[in-house]
């Protein structure tokens, strides 16, 4: 009983705090200076169509490196907590087995399209990686006894992570800054081969996220 009273009091306090925030909120009509600088920089400095991608990969590149590291740590934590255990096998329906055999390749292709066009259209490494992980999830659903080669998964993950850092260090060696996209020529605005190293970095992030999330799914199912 006393717990319920405390919960209700906490909620009343929270609602009072938040309602004053909503009532006094004023929407702006112009971009602030930092955002405007990112938008013009994405056009003139990086020649990348997608402003969000250029902020994630270049301007806040160190943040993204930390984010990928957090994802890796979470994968390691889940693998540590939930070891492999044996369970009984079940058989998927005919429809799922037949359709998954040709859908998997198409879904992986869609994932590759999403992360290789990250600088032109909405999407990028994280979304593409998740789509690839979903393709492997479909494989697991259609055949519960399937086993993934963990050596290849870990090899893809660690190699793409290592190359990501190496691309960053090349920028340091050329003295233009860590994770700068201008280590290779920028190209023409709006083409697939443009925006310098952004497509390379985002493809590496896509491979890394895809293999990490496949690892998480594989650990969580516990066979």
């Amino acid at each position, binding site marked *: 009983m006393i717990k*319920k009273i405390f*919960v209700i009091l*906490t*909620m009343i306090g*929270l*609602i009072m705090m*938040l*309602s004053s*925030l*909503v009532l006094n*909120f004023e*929407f*702006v*009509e*112009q*971009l*602030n200076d*930092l*955002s*405007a600088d*990112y*938008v*013009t920089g*994405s*056009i003139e400095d990086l020649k990348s*169509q*997608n*402003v*969000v991608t250029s*902020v*994630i990969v270049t301007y*806040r590149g160190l*943040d*993204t490196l930390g*984010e990928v590291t*957090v*994802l890796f*740590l*979470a*994968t390691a*934590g*889940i693998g540590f*907590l*939930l070891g492999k255990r044996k369970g009984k096998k079940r058989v998927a329906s005919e429809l799922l087995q037949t359709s998954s055999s040709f859908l998997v390749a198409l879904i992986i292709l869609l994932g590759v399209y999403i992360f290789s066009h990250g600088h*032109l*259209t*909405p999407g990028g490494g*994280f979304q593409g990686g998740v789509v690839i992980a979903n393709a492997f999830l479909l494989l697991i659903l259609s055949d519960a006894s399937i086993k993934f080669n963990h050596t290849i998964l870990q090899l893809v993950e660690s190699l793409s992570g290592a190359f990501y850092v190496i691309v960053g260090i090349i920028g340091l060696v050329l003295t233009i800054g860590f994770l700068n996209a201008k280590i290779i020529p920028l190209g023409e605005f*709006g083409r697939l081969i443009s925006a310098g190293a952004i497509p390379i970095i985002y493809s590496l992030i896509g491979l890394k*996220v895809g293999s990490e999330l496949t690892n*998480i799914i594989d650990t*969580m199912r516990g066979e």
Partner: protein
Amino acid sequence: MIFALILGFALLVIGIYGMLSQRNLIKIVIGFSIADTGIHIIIVSIGYLRNRTAPILNSAVNLKNAVNEVVDPIPSVLVLTAIVIGLAVTALMLSFVVELYKKKQSLSIDDYQELKW
């Protein structure tokens, strides 16, 4: 957009209420994920500017005047990071739930009182 802002705050309140009032461990994680969605909607709605388009500079945007035609890209970046981290946090929380269940065969938080005083 003020309605999206109100929706975000409402989902945040609903999620925190769920985390505080529910006894089932999985329900607590569900409350966390609802509060997470609410916070993301708040951040995105703060970056929204009226009558503007997405920060994708294709043929729909006049490049000379792009600063006055697109919405704020920074909230999108922050939320994109937060969603991926939120997935990792949720997965880690759920594996803790599974581990706790293995210890005591119970999903009720009232059975885990070792840290109470």
